[in-house]
């Protein structure tokens, strides 16, 4: 359906415009930048919400950039999947902006305006990647997302941040080049860049070796970008040493958006017939994701720092989503799409809690967390909820997507994948209960005088950081309780 509203454009244009204003104001009055950035993301979130309502009411929304009809110009093509991911991305970046304000003031006040501009451009890139219906436009916005995330990561830890960012630059550029080469081959064989147009030409080219190579290169490109094991080596350091205001939004969103791109390429561009009937690689990919789940979990066990542990958990979660998408049945794909949203929210909650801890404790190595439940009860409540969701305890949202993935695995006969999911839950349980134990019980056991001390003082994080964590935690449970509605209203109609 051609839309007459401005909301699809506004989702991307509002953060872009405010990024420009932030950058301009950073030379005049830095304090204006924060409200301006907030307004931009608020508009983007509201627009994404309106677009979702419109898509729910009237079906796929098309928005023609510059007014040209699709294969000639670039179009936004927003169906239920895009609309859902757009709303998640916009909302999370808005909440993180509020939660990170104190951090930005404390750590980078002299360059806060420029930081906000880069942050907004990063969000613009993510939203653009999700909204677009054009293969090359997707690459351009991916470029924006990558460039800004390199810059943000390099601002982190002064010793290790720049090096982690440099590694990420090298590998990220390679990943983007793979994707671009794939798109180039698609263009040579079809003469078109519009996803739907390409999809209408491709069935006639199923035996073409160039299309096969294009498919493989596109997939390897997005796998590198989403850090699918064993292409994940850039991720842990990049996410650990990035400044928290940036890593809290890069870590949950960047990889999830790349999973979205993979699913979009599979469903809309190449088509399930080509992938599952013509090519015989789905089983191998499910095995690969099984390995990713286990490897991510095992490496997470070896960490002594919450941020790095969370980074390895992300590696493991990527395995969930890739495996679910490649199981080749509807339940698995449902689980994968549902997990994009749920995992974005729960890793975000985890990083928010880690950020609050880091704000008060300096860093989040396990040995610093002693007595953290007594010192920061609210933050730790959020942390526990995020942990439960990642483990997959009902009624938090992580349980439901994992449930769909397990059912999908059983239906596809991929018992190794099912086993990996269950083992990974157990590993996560070990990971989080180890931290709970440190937070509850250590500290008192050595050196302190039991009977007389009144326990440590409350030293909770500022309210502006607690409220975002609270909202996110409520969503962890809310999304779990309403996951049936989301699946029936959004994901099943989308998958048809």
């Amino acid at each position: 359906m051609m839309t007459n509203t401005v909301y699809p454009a506004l989702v991307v244009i509002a953060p872009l415009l405010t990024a420009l204003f932030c950058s301009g104001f950073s030379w005049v009055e830095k304090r204006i930048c924060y409200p301006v950035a907030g307004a931009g993301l608020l508009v983007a979130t509201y627009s994404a919400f309106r677009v979702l309502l419109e898509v729910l009411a009237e079906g796929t929304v098309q928005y023609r950039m510059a007014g040209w009809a699709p294969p000639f110009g670039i179009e936004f093509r927003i169906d239920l999947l895009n609309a859902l991911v757009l709303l998640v991305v916009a909302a999370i970046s808005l909440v993180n902006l509020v939660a990170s304000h104190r951090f930005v003031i404390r750590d980078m006040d002299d360059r806060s305006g420029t930081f906000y501009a880069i942050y907004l451009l990063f969000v613009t890139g993510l939203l653009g990647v999700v909204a677009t219906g054009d293969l090359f436009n997707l690459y351009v916005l991916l470029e924006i997302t990558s460039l800004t995330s390199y810059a943000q990561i390099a601002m982190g830890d002064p010793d290790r941040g720049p090096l982690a960012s440099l590694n990420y630059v090298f590998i990220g550029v390679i990943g983007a080049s793979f994707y671009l080469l794939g798109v180039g081959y698609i263009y040579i064989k079809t003469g078109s860049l519009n996803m739907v147009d390409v999809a209408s030409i491709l069935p006639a080219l199923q035996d073409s070796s160039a299309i096969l190579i294009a498919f493989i290169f596109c997939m390897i490109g997005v796998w590198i970008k989403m850090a699918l094991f064993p292409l994940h080596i850039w991720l842990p350091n990049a996410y650990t040493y990035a400044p928290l205001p940036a890593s809290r939004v890069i870590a949950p969103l960047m990889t999830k958006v790349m999973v979205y791109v993979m699913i979009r390429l599979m469903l809309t561009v190449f088509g399930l017939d080509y992938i599952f009937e013509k090519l015989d690689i789905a089983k191998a990919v499910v095995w690969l994701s099984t390995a990713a789940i286990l490897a991510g979990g095992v490496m997470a066990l070896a960490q002594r720092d919450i941020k790095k542990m969370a980074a390895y958990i992300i590696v493991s979660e990527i395995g969930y989503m890739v495996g679910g998408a490649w199981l080749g049945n509807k339940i698995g794909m449902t689980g994968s799409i549902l997990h994009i949203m749920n995992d974005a929210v729960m890793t975000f909650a985890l990083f928010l809690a880690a950020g609050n801890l880091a704000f008060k404790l300096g860093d989040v190595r396990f040995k610093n967390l002693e007595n953290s439940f007594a010192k920061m009860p609210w933050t730790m409540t959020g942390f526990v909820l995020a942990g439960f969701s990642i483990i997959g305890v009902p009624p938090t949202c992580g349980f439901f997507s994992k449930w769909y993935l397990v059912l999908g695995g059983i239906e596809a006969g991929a018992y190794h994948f099912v086993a990996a999911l269950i083992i990974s839950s157990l590993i996560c349980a070990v990971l989080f209960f180890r931290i709970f134990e440190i937070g509850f019980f250590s500290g008192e056991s050595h050196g302190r005088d039991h009977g007389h001390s009144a326990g440590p003082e409350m030293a909770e994080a500022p309210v502006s950081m607690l409220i975002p964590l609270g909202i996110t935690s409520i969503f962890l449970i809310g999304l779990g309780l309403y996951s049936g509605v989301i699946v029936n209203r959004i994901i099943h109609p989308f998958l048809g």
Partner: protein
Amino acid sequence: MKFAAFLIVSLCGGLLLYATADLPAWGDPNSPAGTHLSPHYIEKALEETDVPNLVTAVLADYRGYDTMFETAVVFCAGLACLLLLRDYTRKKGSFYRHIPTGVVIHFKENRKNPPKSREFEHMDKEWVPYDLIMKTVCRILIPFIQLYALYVVAHGDFSPGGGFQGGVIFGSSLILLAISYNLRTVMDRIKERVLGFLCVLGVLVYTGIGVLCMIPGGNFLDYSKLAVFLPVDPGHVRALGMLGVEIGVGIAVMAVMVVIYVNIASEGRHDEGL
């Protein structure tokens, strides 16, 4: 490790070569790329956009949304340079030579730059004596380079050229000034703050034109809607929209080039460069 890398590279190269067998012949007019979209652009572009240069028509109009974000990529690079390289602390000391007397002054940490005067010049291990030939040649050359840059921007609609090329040429003229004289000469003419504004202004012109098109109810970047604001022949409005956009690109690219050069050459201190 080297062997593994070699293996991966050969595998990828082999795959790409394997696929080339399936590609259409080089320059084949019947290839999909030549028959699917291109005929429309070739036949209709002049009629629809009133711009004789097809490349510009595709770049700035049919796929203008892409180009806006290409400009934003350039802008991001400039911002990243400011964010990561700009040094707000002024930690390192520096040496200045008072030319008439030949006395060298040592400025210690946290000092401001020496008074703006042609009598001082920066001293470091790359210091070279005053070079009459180079400075004179550059001084004569730079205005012409800049004039040419403006020509390239303005003529993007009709001949090869456009905002990116023109912006780079203009930026390089300022970099030439910085190399042949010194960085302070450039920074005295264009303040850092002005450069920062120009980076923003360039992208803002592009995005602003896009948003302007939405006010009369058009889609983003639909230049034909600019007819409401511009008292010209409606058929020519798209061409003017493209010209405006190209100017924006030119400004942004020029400013970002200089920002990147200045920050890298002076290690973010903006006092003296190469």
